[in-house]
């Protein structure tokens, strides 16, 4: 076992404890369906978090994902309901739009050396504002294909089922795992997160990679938006409000370092499950105020950052020291 896998194991343990604890405490908690529900209810979040993992591993951040998700729910519902376009057209259009937004932000960040925090924050405003340009009201989706996707269930073992969206999410996660582990692009993402300056000097295509990372995140947001419309059958300008922080929390709980360079998509999936199970636990408990969800998640993020510091003192502190040594203020000066 390598020390770098430790955070993932902690997340896994946390999930098992929560699931076990819930099963002991509540009737009906321990069931295959309740486990599958975690995937059904968080498929869009997993897709968002995959994109976010790429961004965070590269040392950046993308605050726009929630808004881009909302925009793609608006655009797809408006194209379906008002323009009566076929889903065959709507899906590519929406995906292209999300990718283009990500590409635009990545281009600004990389070409003009602007801080990702600000550019994607502006992206958050931009996409949210564009939602209202599309429509200020909720748009219901009545398209048959969409309804089919929303209502369809795929039976797994016994009477337990998942929605088609779960397959999309799983496919995205698998693709993400493959890209991160087995493609040069994926490894370049880690290299950039480890030390961007070095990555440039090692001759890696840093410019293209970074722009591509944000484009990928935009793509994932748009796809998550489509999956979200399968989930809610509506476009609404307020969808996904604050979801960027859910995605970030998921990634952090999954063991990815916000400083970049270290992270794993499997951890992100586990982070998503932990995130989901907290919500389920609080619903099952039944009397806790929703504000406690936020406090618990805040607390978990706190605990995780502490854990990472404690478990990784050896590795990541040395890593941080090396980085500080090699490229002090590389961002600022370059």
């Amino acid at each position: 076992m390598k020390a770098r896998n430790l955070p993932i194991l902690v997340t896994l343990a946390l999930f098992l404890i929560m699931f076990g604890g819930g099963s002991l405490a509540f009737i009906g908690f321990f069931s295959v369906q309740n486990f599958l529900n975690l995937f059904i209810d968080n498929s869009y979040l997993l897709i968002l978090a995959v994109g976010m993992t790429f961004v965070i591993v590269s040392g950046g951040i993308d605050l726009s994902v929630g808004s881009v998700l909302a925009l793609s729910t608006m655009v797809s519902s408006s194209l379906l309901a008002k323009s009566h376009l076929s889903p065959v057209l709507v899906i590519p259009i929406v995906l292209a739009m999300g990718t283009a937004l990500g590409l635009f932000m990545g281009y600004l960040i990389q070409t003009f050396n602007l801080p990702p925090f600000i550019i994607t924050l502006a992206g958050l405003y931009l996409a949210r504002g564009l939602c209202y340009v599309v429509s200020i009201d909720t748009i219901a989706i009545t398209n048959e294909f969409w309804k089919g996707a929303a209502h369809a269930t795929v039976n797994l073992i016994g009477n337990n089922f998942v929605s088609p969206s779960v397959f999309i999410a799983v496919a995205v996660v698998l693709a993400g795992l493959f890209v991160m582990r087995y493609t040069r692009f994926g490894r370049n993402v880690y290299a950039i997160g480890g030390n961007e300056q070095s990555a440039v000097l090692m001759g890696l295509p840093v410019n293209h990679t970074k722009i591509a990372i944000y484009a990928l995140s935009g793509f994932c947001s748009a796809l998550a938006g489509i999956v979200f419309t399968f989930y809610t059958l509506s476009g609404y300008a307020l969808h996904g409000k604050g979801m960027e922080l859910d995605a970030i929390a998921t990634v952090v709980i999954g063991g990815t370092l916000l400083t970049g360079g270290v992270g794993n998509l499997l951890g992100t999936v586990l982070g998503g499950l932990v995130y989901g199970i907290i919500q389920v636990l609080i619903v099952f408990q039944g009397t806790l105020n929703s504000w406690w969800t936020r406090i618990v998640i805040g607390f978990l993020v706190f605990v995780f950052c502490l854990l990472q510091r404690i478990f990784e003192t050896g590795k990541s502190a040395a890593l941080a020291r090396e980085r500080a040594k090699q490229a002090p203020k590389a961002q600022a000066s370059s």
Partner: protein
Amino acid sequence: MKKWGKIFALVAAVLLVLSVAAFAQPKHWVVGFSQIGSEREWRTADTISVQNAFLEDPTFTLIYSDAQQRQENQIKAIRSFIARRVNAILFTALVETGYGPVLQEAKRAGIPVVMIDRDVAKEDRGLRLTIMGSDFIKEGEKAGEWLADYLKKKGLDDGKKAINIVELQGTTGSAPAIERKTGFANVLKSHANWKITRSQTGNFTSSEGKQVMEAFLKADKNIDVLYAHNDQMALGAIQAIKEAGLKPGKDIIIVGVDAVKGAFEAMVAGEMNASIECSPLLGPQAVLAMRDLRDGKKLPARIYTIEGIFDETNAAEALPTRQY
């Protein structure tokens, strides 16, 4: 033979008593309640009312879930309710669409769903039993009708002189905002001289209500009436009116919706003219409905709340009794 008859009678009596006892001791029910959130005091009052009403009846356990204004959280909560095998679900829909699949699951699991306050889309209404709560369109209409009465009573409306009305809308796209606007517009149609000069969203909050009113006043001070989609915005706007050197309630007639405590206090102070009640006290009604459901009674297709209108004439009297 007589003996057998006696024994039979006794057994029958015992059975009868037992069955009656069984009937008298209703079985324990777990009810899941998916609330939108606690975005403003009206909603909080609603939540507290439901929670308290169920607390008072020990044969019920209420599982409460607050969605923090997010649809996905509601869907998740309902799914968890189903997994938890609750006996019934109370549900306030954030938006209309998108609940079909999960309501379908509830139906398959045999769990009845009762809507509170906000309904789901028409096509999904077959999946829920009934809806209880206010009629937002009606509230808008009430506001318009009250205004017509008031103007007539005070002799301010001769049917010709233009009445300039500004409107503070609720959160863009939300059902109460759309319907309260529609209701008010319905009354407006029969008054040719009434004119909505400006209409902007104040997002149901007092601070935005205040800022928007400030902008209204800067652009054109010639305002006769303010219609706010909720009291909170009206109360914010009152501050703006005062700062502009005008007298709220006198120079500008102010009508709000909800009848929250703050509005009563403003009405008593003479700074606000009327508030259309939109009662959030749905708890007792909800418990009643659940009892009927448990007893196997049929619920009506729509359960309306009894609501009033409050203005300068009855505000002071009602203020001490207001719970929210």
